[in-house]
Structure formats: C-alpha cells, structure tokens
C-alpha cells in the first residue's frame, strides 16, 4: 500500500510538471494555431537567465520575476520577428521554423552557459511531508507546483472564455480574416498570445528546473511528455492540459514502479493511443466528428 501511495504522489508531482509545459503549448495553440516546439527552447533560456540572476543576486524571487518578464519579452519578439512571416503559409513551415528555433536556442545556450547542467533552487523545501512516522514522496515544493499549475489553468480558461481579449485571441486564431473585418488587431493578438504562452512556459521552467537541473538538453524529456500531455488532454483545453498531465504522470509512475523504467516511453505511447482512439481530439475535445 505504501508503494502505491508513493507512486501516486510521485505521479501527481511529475504530472503537474508535464501539465505546466502542456499549458504553455495549449496557450500557443489556442492563440495562433501553431504547435510550438520552440517553447522548450524559450523556457530553457529564461530558466538559465533566472539561474544567473539568482546566482549573482542571491534572491530566488528576483530571479523568478526576471524570468517571467524575459518570457513575455522573448515570446513577443519571436512572434514579431520570426513567426509573423510564416503564420499565413503552410502550417508545416511554421513547425519547421519552430524546430529550427529550438535547435538554435539550445545551441546558443550551450555557447553562452556551457553544456554542464547546473543546480536550480526550489521555491520551497523539497523534504517530503511527515505523516504518521513515514515521510511521503510529496513536499511543500510539490504542493506549490500543483497549486500554481491549477491556478494558471483556471486563469487561462477564464481568460479565453469570459474576457474580451480572450475572445479576440480565439477569433484571430480561428478566423483571422473575419476577425480583421470586425476590427480585431489580429497581429497584436498573435503577439499577445505568444507573449502569454512564453510567460506560462517560463513559469513551467522555473517549476521544473529543480528536479531536472538546468542545461541545454535537460528539459527535453519534460517537453516531450508535456507535448504528449497536451495532446492527451486536448490542445484547446487548459483543464485538459492539467488532467492530461496528471493522468500521464500517474500512468508513467505506476509503470516505472511496477514494471520498470525501460517501459516508460512505451507506456506513454499506449496511454496516448488508447485515449486518442476513443476521442481523437483529446480528452476534453469539443469538436464533433463529421462523418459523411
């Protein structure tokens, strides 16, 4: 029983991390209809910046704030300079540009900060809670991560559903021409979407970094599972990203614990296919299939 509890708690804490990355991908998808592989590179850069700031200033929250601000700026710049030129063309071109940007960012980080991973401080203690004499595999920092992820998911859902800005962003993504005719500044909405997505991504990086260390390639596994979680939950749904992330985290934790670490990636494949076969748009998809 303790084993099951340990694995469940581990699943939730790792799942929250996947959910954080998934939320950034959902944000970008809803706002611009692009799958942004460069998200991983951008959050890696902002986490490196945070690490440098924390190292030189000694203050965690200062580095935290700087990373979030850098995220906003980086997202806006990338959209304006790069993605604006490929947004109208074939969707695959945007994917390739995003991949190119990811590779460029990872190489750039390697050039500036080197390939050796470095330590990153957690926001709160990582010592597990003591319950009835046993130490749980869940710490105050994990609680913080889960709470932040849920808060961001709720915030995004509210943004898209109930605010005018959210409506404008969705309109710009789904029907840009019509939105323009109705007076929406589509370009500005895209920039805002990218900036917010990079903000969420930076947040994800700060939450993840203590347990994966900061290095050019250290975030890669998290990104892959984050993308899987986003697809699992439905790319249009922030709550879907959270549910997808937690579900994936739990599944992988149980498989790693009961079957062995070698089957983890295969388990991710099985879970994803199982869900997508039943609901091809992800768990929380709203679109109905049109079968002729």
């Amino acid at each position, binding site marked *: 029983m*303790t*084993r099951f509890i*340990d*694995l469940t708690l*581990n699943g939730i804490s*790792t799942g929250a991390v996947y959910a954080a990355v998934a939320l950034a991908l959902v944000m970008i998808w809803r706002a611009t209809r692009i799958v942004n592989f460069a998200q991983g590179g951008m959050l890696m850069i902002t986490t490196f910046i945070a690490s440098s700031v924390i190292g030189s200033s000694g203050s965690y929250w200062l580095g935290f704030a700087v990373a979030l601000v850098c995220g906003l700026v980086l997202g806006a710049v990338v959209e304006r300079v790069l993605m604006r030129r490929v947004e109208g063309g074939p969707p695959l071109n945007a994917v390739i540009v995003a991949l190119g940007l990811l590779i460029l960012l990872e*190489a750039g980080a*390697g050039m500036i900060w080197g*390939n*050796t*991973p*470095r*330590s*990153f*401080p*957690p926001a709160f203690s*990582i*010592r*597990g809670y*003591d319950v009835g004499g046993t*130490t749980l*595999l869940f*710490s105050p920092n994990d609680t913080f991560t889960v709470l932040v992820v849920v808060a961001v998911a709720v915030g995004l859902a509210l943004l898209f559903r109930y605010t005018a800005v959210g409506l404008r962003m969705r309109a710009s993504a789904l029907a840009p021409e019509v939105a323009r005719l109705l007076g929406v500044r589509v370009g500005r909405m895209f920039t805002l979407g990218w900036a917010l997505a990079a903000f969420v991504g930076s947040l994800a990086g700060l939450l993840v970094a*203590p*347990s*994966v*260390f900061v*290095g*050019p*390639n*250290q975030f*890669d*596994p*998290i990104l892959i599972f984050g993308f899987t979680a986003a697809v699992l939950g439905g790319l249009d749904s922030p709550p879907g990203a959270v549910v997808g992330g937690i579900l994936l985290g739990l599944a*992988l*934790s149980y498989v*790693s*614990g009961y079957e*062995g*670490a*070698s089957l*983890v990636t295969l388990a991710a494949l099985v879970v994803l296919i199982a869900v997508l076969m039943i609901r091809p748009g992800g768990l929380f998809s709203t679109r109905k299939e049109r079968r002729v």
Partner: protein
Amino acid sequence: MRVDKHKVRAVGAVGALLVALVVAGCGSSSSSSSSAPGVTATSITFGTHQPLTGPAAPGYSEIAPASQAFFDYLNAQGGINGRKIHLIIKNDEYNPTQTVSVVHQLVLQNNVFGIFEGLGTPTHTKVVSYLNSSKVPDMFVASGCACWDNGTAQPYTFGWQTQYTIEGKILGQYIKQHYAGKKIGVFYQDDDFGTGGLAGIKDELPASSIVSAQPYQPGGTNVAPQISAIKAAGAEVLVDFTVPIYTALGQLTSFTLGYKPQLVVSNVGIDPTTVGGLLKTFSKGKAGTELIEGAVTDGYLPSSSDLSNPWIALFKKIHDQYDSSAPFDGNVEYGMANAYTLAQALQLAGKSLTREKLIEAVNEKGAQLTGPGLVPFRYSKTDHGGYSGVEIGQVRNGKIVLFGGPLVTEPTSGAPITPYTTAQPAPPSSGVSVP
C-alpha cells in the same frame, strides 16, 4: 521550338545530382601515402570521437580537450621521439550512426595514425571491427566495458580504465567486510556500465543480502519510483552505479524521502565537483556535497582534489596553462592520465614508428608501465583490459580521500582480490618515463 519540359526536368534533376556529388567530393583529401598514415618525422596525428553536445555531453566533453592540453605540454618540450602529437576531436553526439561516420572520416579523410580514447560503449562497439579489419590502432577506449579486452580477436583495440566488473568486485568485497549482515540496494544504469558493476557486486556478496536492484534508463529524469522501491525494501546500504546526473537525482529523491542509507558510489558517478555542483542549491553550504558526504567510492587514479600528490600538481599546472576554461575535476584528470599512457606507448614504440610497432609496444611492455595510476596495467598479447584494480576511498569534507591501499583482481568470477603494494612513482620533470 518548344523544349520538352520532361527532358529538361530529367536532365536538370540528374545534373543537379551530379553537381551535388562533385561538390561533395571537393573537400576530400588525396589518398594516404603507402608508409604509415598520420605520421611524419615531426608529427603524429590521432583522432577521437566524443559526445561534445547532447544529453551525454556533461562532463565527458571535458576529457578530450584535457588530453589535448597534455599533448600541448609535451609538444612544448619537443614532443615524443621528436614528434608533436596532434589530436583531432570529432563530435558524435553519442549517436552510433555518427560514430561510424566520423571514425571513417578520421581514418579515410584525415588519415590519422590511430584512434585514441573513443568514448562510450554503445558508440565505440560499432567501430571496433572496422578499425581492426583496417588495422588502425584503437588505443585506450574511454569505457570500462569488457568489450575491449580481447587481444586475440581484436588485436588493435585496447581498453584503459578499470573494468566495471573489477570495480564492482572490489566495492562488493569492501561492503562484505564493513557492512556485513546489512541489506543492500543497488541503483544502476541499464547498460554495460550498470550491469557490469552489478555483476561484480553479486560476485562478492551473497544474493540474499541484495534486497533490491533497480535499473534506470538514461534520458528519463524521474528516478523516484526506483529509489522509493529501494527504501521500501529496507536497504541500509545504497550502491550507485550511476553517472553524476543520476547520482544527484537519486540523492534528491532520498532527501525528499528522508532516506539516509550508507552510499557506495562508482568512481564514474562520484566526482564531487560535478555532483556537488548539481546539488549546490539544496545543501546548506556552498560546496553542495553534503548529500554525498561519507559516501564510499573508489579510484584507480589519485583524487583530483589531492593537490599534495605530485601528479595532481602537474596536471593542475598543465590545466591552468592549456585548458583553463574547464573546471579541474575528475574528467580533466582522466583525459590527462590517458594521454600520458599514450605518450608512454609512443615512446616505447621508438623513433621508426609503424602501427604494428605501437601495438607490439603495449602488448610487450604495457604491463610494466607506471604513471599516475595507483594500480598496474594488465596488458599482454591476449589481455587488453587496462588498469587491474582500484583503491577504496570516501568523500570527506567534500573531497575524495583514498585509503586502504590499492587492490587488484581479474574480471572473472571468483578470481581473488589481492593488494598491490608498489608505491606510485613521482612524475618525471619533463616528458614521460618508460621502463
């Protein structure tokens, strides 16, 4: 007249193909001369394949530049037998496809005399048969796999570092002597490194004392299921056959769980500079090694933090002059020590140098070589394994302190472990010293 567009297209496509091929061909050098390739009266060139980028790069990317720094030091004194040693380092990103490609490039295009310090088991195993069938010296592979230890079938390939199985045996014996009756848990990498070490441990310890053996896949970052399983089994001693990142990840999970077993860590994954750097922000002190303090480990070279050791002092001096951008840690020491052995082999091979003479030199005199190693080499015509043992050590005040004296053994099951009592010689004031 309307040109048939299909003809144009066909000719265009084929023409483009030919142009691309000719351009690709333009960069290739002429074929090598009939005498030994890669060697002249004044220089000798080796090549190596290393993971310079990618997930396997941390730490390992320091090794070849450190070897190059040692060669620079020798070259400043005139080199070996009047020849300056050059090392061409190529990046294979730990991808066997790339390894095959860059090794072919080194042999066929760069015309190297031999390959030196090729890094990695999954990578280097893919070029061993090519190098041996092409009769290219494959010196001192940077891996502790038993794969290189076959002088009969692979005469051109030599290992260098102590094999993982030997290390496992000596660590296992130490555990048997000092932690008798305690429950043992093993956390190991799911490849030759981890399984080799585990086999050595099992050779010395009774099977009933190993209560949990959990493999991990390099690439994943969640090791909590494995560590919590070891804790749940009640292990009081945790043996880590891990690379530094996974030693650190294991310690983080142990800290979360409040799990404080006696650590026993392979020399591959214990470098306190590297592991301490990864754990820095979790430990109260600046060093970051609190979580591995007191860990038992081993080494076949002196501890890199022991500046009173004349070899370490020499390597530090060379590092500060030729390789100062890297931290001075176990990886840099490894690169320089391995380079020292290659330089010794070249010295032994003599002034009129051929590939066969280099091989013969190591086969015949390799076992008598002394240098920064704490234990002797096992080299012979049939045995190409490398160092024959390790000395037990412990992390004290964030540094590895070796004690107890070097021990040597054979990798075969049941072979006895015997002490090696010859003292380590002092480094020569210049160049290298050979028997």
